């Protein structure tokens, strides 16, 4: 048994500990079940799920960059019905929270998805992924426009009693604006960040490296930017935040909590070390003990300005 209290209450959502795995980086849990004790996780955010199955983008879909990676998977997924039928029963065996990340091109599809998942046994919360391109708006993300954000969040809000997490796009001038729009629309929790839009070019062939041209940047490269955004949003809204973006170890996770996140999600790091989420969990406990804390909640948002010139 751990000597520190690790459970957290995110608005209506209770988690046994604050360590989640980020959508798209842990599949449907079953892929990792023999390597990771899923019962120990705070929660699993499953792969982005759409109304109908999707084939995804052509290859190449991923490319490594300096301390990061670009991905343009294109939401390849089995669709919500197959998810409920084939993936959820497995997850129901475990006591970690199951959070379904839902994605769509048009607002009505978000509503349908929310309605379909409402009351389904074993689904503990919805995560609204408004950071994917929106066909109805010419490929621009919902998540960069506060009005579209407000509208889609409030539509979904009306269709579900599940705890509603809204996942914010970092590709904006001022993330506090979309954060507030999401909260006004009825978000119980905000999660951030999704990936940053970027590209990579092969100088030799003079071609883009991704078939889709652009992709989303994740990994350690984005941590300073994600940390800043979490800190900004934490000061602008009163709902709890799930922080993510480049978390590779417990220290990174603690930084997000100090910046104001009540829970964290580990993403790209799962590819590199399947057990990293458990290591992050254990590392946070260790950190709290070292810091003389008895409850993980005590550190949330406690970062202070450094004493100037303290370095030298």
């Amino acid at each position: 048994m751990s000597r520190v209290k690790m459970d957290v209450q995110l608005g209506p959502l209770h988690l046994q500990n604050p360590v989640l795995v980020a959508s798209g980086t842990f599949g449907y849990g079953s892929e990792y079940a023999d390597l990771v004790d899923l019962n120990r996780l705070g929660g699993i955010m499953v792969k982005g799920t759409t109304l109908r199955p999707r084939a995804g983008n052509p290859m190449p879909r991923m490319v490594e960059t300096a301390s990061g990676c670009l991905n343009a998977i294109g939401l390849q997924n089995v669709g919500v019905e197959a998810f409920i039928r084939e993936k959820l029963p497995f997850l129901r065996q475990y006591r970690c929270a199951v959070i379904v990340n839902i994605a769509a091109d048009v607002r009505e599809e978000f509503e349908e998805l929310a309605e379909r998942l409402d009351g389904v046994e074993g689904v503990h919360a919805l995560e609204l992924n408004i950071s994917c391109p929106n066909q109805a708006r010419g490929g621009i993300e919902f998540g960069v426009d506060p009005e579209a954000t407000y509208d889609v969040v409030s539509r979904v809000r009306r269709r579900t009693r599940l705890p509603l997490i809204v996942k914010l796009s970092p590709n904006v001038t001022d993330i506090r604006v979309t954060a507030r729009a999401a909260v006004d629309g009825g978000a119980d929790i905000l999660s951030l960040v999704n990936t940053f839009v970027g590209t990579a070019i092969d100088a030799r062939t003079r071609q883009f490296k991704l078939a889709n041209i652009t992709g989303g940047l994740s990994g350690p490269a984005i941590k300073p930017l994600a940390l800043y955004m979490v800190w900004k949003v934490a000061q602008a809204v009163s709902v709890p935040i799930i922080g993510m973006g480049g978390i590779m170890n417990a220290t990174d996770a603690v930084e997000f909590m100090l910046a104001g996140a009540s829970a964290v999600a580990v993403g790209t790091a799962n590819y590199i070390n399947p057990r990293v989420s458990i290591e992050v969990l254990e590392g946070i406990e260790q950190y709290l003990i070292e810091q003389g804390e008895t409850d993980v909640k005590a550190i949330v948002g406690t970062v202070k300005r450094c004493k100037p010139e303290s370095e030298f």
Partner: protein
Amino acid sequence: MRCAEYCEVVANQPVATDQFEIEIHCPTVARYAQPGQFVQMRVQSGYEPLFSRPFSVFHRKPDRDTFSVVYLVRGTFTQLLAHKQAGDRVFVVGPLGNRFVVAEPQHEKVHVLVAGGVGAPPLYLLAEEMVHHGIAHSNVVVINGARRQDLLVCQGHFAGLGVRLFTATEDGSAGIKGKVTDVLESLREQGDLAPERCQIYACGPTAMLEAVAAFAQQHHVPCQVSLETLMPCGLGVCLGCAVKIRTGDGYDYKRACVDGPIFDAAEVLWR
């Protein structure tokens, strides 16, 4: 059974130009790896490169609790790997992926293993298994190809098994001058590749696989190919290793890491 753990390097030796064999202590992989399966390896402590890298299992030594991999030094990761010494640690996840399936009835088939460059190691594991299962040496045909003699790997190992070994190099520095498909063609002309009696298993560069697949299709010989893609996770979750696999008159993206890396050549949409 799979593991994800730090393992100790037992040996790391050059075997051909820019190619090394690394032996790693890892009871799980040593015991459970099947021919065609791979491991994800990580030696970097930081983020250069970010991802682990996939390598096919070459040798299994369950008595020593070790397995080995033959690798070609290509870029950042393999350069780091080449610097590892006995006693150093490597993070290993595996065994992963599916395996080559030995065509049934296995004792009546001619099994043709077509290797290109560092594609040879998993086919050695397969050939070894076949011999171990008592398949006649004369029914195990290995075609080992490379650009030059000094890039050929596993020659000694194949020879040691006593199987029928053909060698092809593009510059003629070993075996026949030509490609593995030239050897296939001459075997066919000799009547050695009767479709109903024969199964091809191929591993090597994509261009070679495509040529072998085209040959197999033309001559109606069943063929399994091991596909190489970027493999960020190796566990089936990132979908960064998608390959187009025929389904009816359309196609599906399958994951090379868990649905493969071995696929029926006839089902692969090459472009």
